[in-house]
C-alpha cells in the first residue's frame, strides 16, 4: 500500500485501492449544504432510512436508530424523503412532518 502523497512511481497502477473500507477515512460530510435531523421520541426504528442511505451514514446499534454519521452524510435528503413516520412537532424544527427532516447546515 503506498503511503500518503505517493509519487507516480509509487502509486498503485490504475488507481486500484488495495485497502478495503478506505472510504471511512474520506470525510464527505463537508460537501453538505443541508443536514438531516431526527425526532427520537417519534421514531419507530423501522430502519427504512438505514436501508436507503447511499453512504451508510445511519448509525444503528441493536436494531435501533442511534445517530447520523455527519462525517460521511452528504446531505442528499434520501432518508428524509423515505421516512414513513409522522411527528406533530419535530424536536429540532418544531414543525409537523416526518421524523427525519432537512435543515440548513448552519441551523
Amino acid at each position, binding site marked *: 500500500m503506498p503511503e500518503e502523497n505517493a509519487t*507516480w512511481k509509487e*502509486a498503485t*497502477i*490504475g*488507481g486500484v485501492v488495495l485497502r478495503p473500507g478506505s472510504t471511512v477515512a*474520506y470525510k464527505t460530510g463537508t460537501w453538505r449544504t443541508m443536514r438531516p435531523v431526527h425526532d427520537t421520541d417519534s421514531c419507530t426504528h423501522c430502519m427504512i432510512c438505514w436501508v436507503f442511505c447511499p453512504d451508510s451514514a445511519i448509525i444503528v446499534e441493536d436494531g435501533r436508530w442511534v445517530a447520523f454519521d455527519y462525517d460521511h452524510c452528504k446531505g442528499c435528503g434520501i432518508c428524509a424523503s423515505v421516512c414513513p413516520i409522522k411527528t406533530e412537532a419535530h424536536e429540532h424544527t418544531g414543525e409537523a412532518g416526518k421524523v427525519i427532516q432537512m435543515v440548513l447546515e448552519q441551523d
Partner: protein
Amino acid sequence: MVKSTRLALDGAHAASTAMRQINPDVVAAYPITPQTAVVQTFSQYVADGVVDTEFMAVESEHAAMSACIGASAAGGRVMTATAANGLALMWEMVYIAASMRLPIVMTVVNRALSAPLNIHCDHSDSMGARDAGWIQLYSETAQEAYDNLIQAVRIAEHPDLLLPVMVMQDGFITGHGVERVEVLDEGLVKEFIGTYKPKYSLLDVDEPKTFGAWDMYDYYFEHKRQQTDAFSKAMNVIVDVGEEYGQLSGRGYGIFESYALDDAEMAIVVLSSASGTARSVVKKLRGEGVKIGLLKPRVFRPFPSQELAAALKGVKAVAVLDRSISFGAMDGAGPLYLELCAALFASGLGTKVVNYIFGLGGRDIFPEHFEQVASDLQQIAATGEVKSLVGYLGLRE
C-alpha cells in the same frame, strides 16, 4: 506436428479464428457492420462448445465495453470487437478500460463514422480514439489481422504495460475480402499467449480491492503519468513480441514495414490495406528508375516518432496518406500526417512532407492515385517547393 494450415479466410473470419484459438474467458460484444462476422462467427464457436468463453450478447457497445471492463477487473482474459458508430458509442468506457489498466483486446474493423450514414472503410473511428490510452496496431491483410490479434494478447498483458490493444483491419476491403491465411496450430497459439495472471482481481475475496475508485486532484495526475510511462515501455514490448512471433510463425513483425526505402529520395507513408496498392506502384516506379519507397506503419499508438524519423532521414520528400481527417487541424490534415510532421520536426529534419486525404467512406484508391502522388513528390524533391500541404485523392473537384 502440423505447424500451420493454409486457409481461405476473410479478415473478419481471420479475427474470429484467432479469437477461437486464444479462447478468452469472456467476450462481450454487439454486432455492427462490417464487424458482425467476427462476433457472429465467434458466438457460433461458443454455441458449438469449441471454446470455453462466456459470451455476453449485450444491448449496446457501451454495455459491451462495460462488461469487458468488469470481466477484466475480475481477472479474466477478455476480448471484443466493434466498428465505427459502435466504437463511438463505447467512447466513455474505452477511456475507462485504458485508465483502469485493463488488458482488453479489441478488433476494430475500420468503418466511416456517421453522418452521412456509411458502412464502408475509413479510419475516422479508430483515429478518433487515438488519445484514449489504447495501443493501436493497423493490419494490411487478413493474415496481419490474425497475427496482430494473437500478439496483442501478449502485448496487452505484459506486466510493464497492462494496456488495452486495438487491432485494426479495413472494413470490407480486408474484413470481407477472402485471402490466403496461414493459421497456426492451436497448441502453438496457446503456448505463445500463455496463461493470464492478473496483477489484481476483483474476485479476490481474501484481499479485497477496489477498482475505478474516486481519484481527485491528489492522485489523478499521478495515474495519468503512469499511463504515459506504460506507453514509453510499449514499443520495446511490441518489438520483442513481434520477434518472438516471427520465430514461431516465420512472420516477424516490427514497428513498421518498409519497401524500397533504403536509398529512396521520396517516400509514401500509408496505413493498412492501401499500402498493398502503394507497394505495387512503388515496385513499378522502381523498375522505371524512380527512387521512391514505401513506409507502412503498423503501430500508431504508441507513435513511433524516433523510429519513423530515423527511417525517413535521407528522404527529400514524403507523402503521408490519411484515411481520416482531423477536422480543424492544420489545413484540415489527417492524424498520421500531423504526428509524422511533429516527429520529423522534433528530430531536426527539414523534410518536405505533404498530406493526401483518401478513401473516406470507402472511396476506392487506385494505382493512378499513387502515381499522381509519386509525380507530385518528384516535383517537390526537385524544386524543394510545396504548393499545398493537403490534397485529396479520388475526390470529384
